[in-house]
């Protein structure tokens, strides 16, 4: 394999692994802060136990998220040196600002929170967790501003073959990034609520600490329903961004080969990328694709065949990650709706089948979140910066395939080990319901 291919596999590995931990950090920090605020306001012991229970799981998850996050900062320079030289002027700024403005805040205050239970009042302690939750979302914003620039570069000028920042306002008001922040935050809350509901369901099925887990489940159900409904809005907004700025990604994720107006949306569609057409196209909803992409029923969708072959992303990967993500998104609304009904009617115990479903459903938002990123990043190919720099031209020139093979094997071993330890600790703490 080439340095480029190996480096791409490595980046995918470390980014996908890191993102297993990010959404739970974003969502659960706020849920724990909410639980502790309830405790501070009501003084009821059940909310204290709830805060401690979920925070133990949060901290295990957070630790792996932090240590795997540094990898990504190192990766750009190690494997993508040509990219770093090309974009550093623009892309480096939000990364440096993220560390300075958000990550310091998050890590310092989390250290404070863990060690200050006995030293500050309930209200102050809860407020510290709110700072952590705020800082983690602020951190996501700056990272997404950096990623948003790769998807929709703006506010720069090409000087001497390198992108130079000329308009910081254009960088920070990039609509692509803000919509992605909305999408990512709602996904994080959906994932975190399903995490809370799933683990609560497991414990309810075992008949443990029923009061605490019923209340936790109810919080998860309510937040989960709101977040999963808002994702539909976020998804619609994201789709329009893609249609407007990344026509090749749109065509690939919809497997649209020919340019057509008033394009229908096929509920059942199977692409045949080798033949450059679709094997199955069935159950059309007339005009729906045009309507979804451009909010106009007659809009024209440019097909893949009208783009040069060397500018098309992989149809199989983008199409299926998009379809499965969307299908899961609607499933989350259905499950969250049932969860709200059962939780608020207090009939969870009578519907053990539903608890069983929810205890397995907790992995589904993880799948959906990862597929969303696979779609975003693979759909941007062959560009690393859309329309500006190709991935093949971005890889470091001074490293060898052997170097990257060594590092890839190292990452797989260490991350495999981290995954095992993380799973062990989460399972241990999930069972440990008493102080």
């Amino acid at each position: 394999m080439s340095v480029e291919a190996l480096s791409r596999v490595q980046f995918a590995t470390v980014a996908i692994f890191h993102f297993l931990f990010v959404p739970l950090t974003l969502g659960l920090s706020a849920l724990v802060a909410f639980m502790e605020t309830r405790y501070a306001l009501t003084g009821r012991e059940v909310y204290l136990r709830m805060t401690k229970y979920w925070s133990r799981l949060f901290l295990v998850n957070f630790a792996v998220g932090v240590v795997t996050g540094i990898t990504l900062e190192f990766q750009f320079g190690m494997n993508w040196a040509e990219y770093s030289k090309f974009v550093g002027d623009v892309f480096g700024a939000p990364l440096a600002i993220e560390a300075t403005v958000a990550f310091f805040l998050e890590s310092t205050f989390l250290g404070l929170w863990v060690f200050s239970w006995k030293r500050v009042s309930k209200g102050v302690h809860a407020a510290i967790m709110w700072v952590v939750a705020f800082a983690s979302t602020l951190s996501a914003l700056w990272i997404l501003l950096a990623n948003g620039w790769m998807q929709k570069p703006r506010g720069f000028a090409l000087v001497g073959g390198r992108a130079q920042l000329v308009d910081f306002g254009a960088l920070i008001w990039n609509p692509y990034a803000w919509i992605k922040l909305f999408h990512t935050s709602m996904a994080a809350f959906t994932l975190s609520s399903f995490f809370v509901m799933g683990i609560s369901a497991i414990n309810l099925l075992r008949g443990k600490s029923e009061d605490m887990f019923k209340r936790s489940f109810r919080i998860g159900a309510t937040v989960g329903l709101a977040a999963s409904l808002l994702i539909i809005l976020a998804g619609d907004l994201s789709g329009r961004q893609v249609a407007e700025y990344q026509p090749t990604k749109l065509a690939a994720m919809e497997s649209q080969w020919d340019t057509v107006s008033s394009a229908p949306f096929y509920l059942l569609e199977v692409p045949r990328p080798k033949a450059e057409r679709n094997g199955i196209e069935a159950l059309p909803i007339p005009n729906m694709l045009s309507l979804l992409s451009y909010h106009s029923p007659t809009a024209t969708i440019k097909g893949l065949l009208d783009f040069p072959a060397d500018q098309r992303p992989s149809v199989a990967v983008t199409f299926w990650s998009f379809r499965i993500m969307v299908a899961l998104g609607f499933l989350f609304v259905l499950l969250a709706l049932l969860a709200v009904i059962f939780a608020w009617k207090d009939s969870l115990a009578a519907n053990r089948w539903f608890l069983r479903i929810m205890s397995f459903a907790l992995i589904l938002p993880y799948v959906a979140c990862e597929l969303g990123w696979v779609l975003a990043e693979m759909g941007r190919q062959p560009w690393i910066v859309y329309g500006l720099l190709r991935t093949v031209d971005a890889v470091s020139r001074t490293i060898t395939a052997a170097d990257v093979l060594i590092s890839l094997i190292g990452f797989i071993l260490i991350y495999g080990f981290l995954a095992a330890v993380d799973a062990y600790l989460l399972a241990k703490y999930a069972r440990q319901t008493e102080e």
Partner: protein
Amino acid sequence: MTLQVLWFALWGVLWAVYFMLDGFDFGAGMLRNFLAEGESDRGLALAAIGPVWNGNEVWLITAGGATFAAFPLVYASMFSFLYLPMLLILFSLIVRGVSIEFRNKSEGAKWRSWWDWALAISSLTAPLVLGLGFGNIFEGLPIATDGYRGGFWMLFNGYGLLTAILFIALFLQHGALWLEYRTSGSLAVRSRALASFLWYVVLGIAALFLVATAFATRIYDNYLSRPALFLVPLLAVAFLVAVKPLHARSRVLGAFSASCAAIVLVLATAFIGLFPDLIPSSIDPAASLTAFNSSSGQYTLRLMAIVAAIFVPIVIVYQFLAYRFFRAKLAKGTGGEDY
């Protein structure tokens, strides 16, 4: 021009502050297994760095991010030329972080002993490879105008290894002083005895380093053309020396502060000597990466200077307050159980 000089200085300051802060985490991490006898001491030693290590490590992430934003060419070159060393630093930091966070999350003796050793070893390898990398940067890397001529094993030269040993020695003393300052009982007593002894070692290695620097690097060229600059290495030595009398009078916080100043000044000595190079070339001065030929545009430098001017002081204030919050000495029964 001025902005590039300003960012060169900030670049140096971020790295120096990172070593000053994470240095005692590394030192305490390396020493913990040998100084802490028994479970409760080990808990104390962990609680001495537990609340702060992550905030300290963010200085590295900021130093890396600032390098990326202000000197993209340096960031790209440093990380890709030194690919395997960077990988080793990364793996060390990953293992170090989870060792601190996971060690007390399960009770088994084997589990704890595994993480204790993982922490000790990763706390050694991180400064070792960082020292090796910076030592080689001080000497200059074999950069030609059309590429990089270096390899992994050539980093293990005398001066590179000496710099690694200097980093390790400085951080060992720093960590011993921190453990003495933060803990009490037999752990503090043993840390004190070790810190006393390490002072001789550190002073000897630092003297050797300052002499070797004259032969292995061009760092003193800047000093010879502006002799007033010699104040900085003199101050570094003065603070290193001052650790001893402060420590002997049981002014532990004073001794630790002197150690902080010494670490910052040792790095300042090297960075001042490098200027305007961030990464000098050992084979072709024209290929050196300097503050002037490898920086971002004026717009980004100015923007980042404004961001740094506003937020770095804020960070320093709340991190200082967090340190003050945790200033009470840890004693048996007050430390590890919350962790």
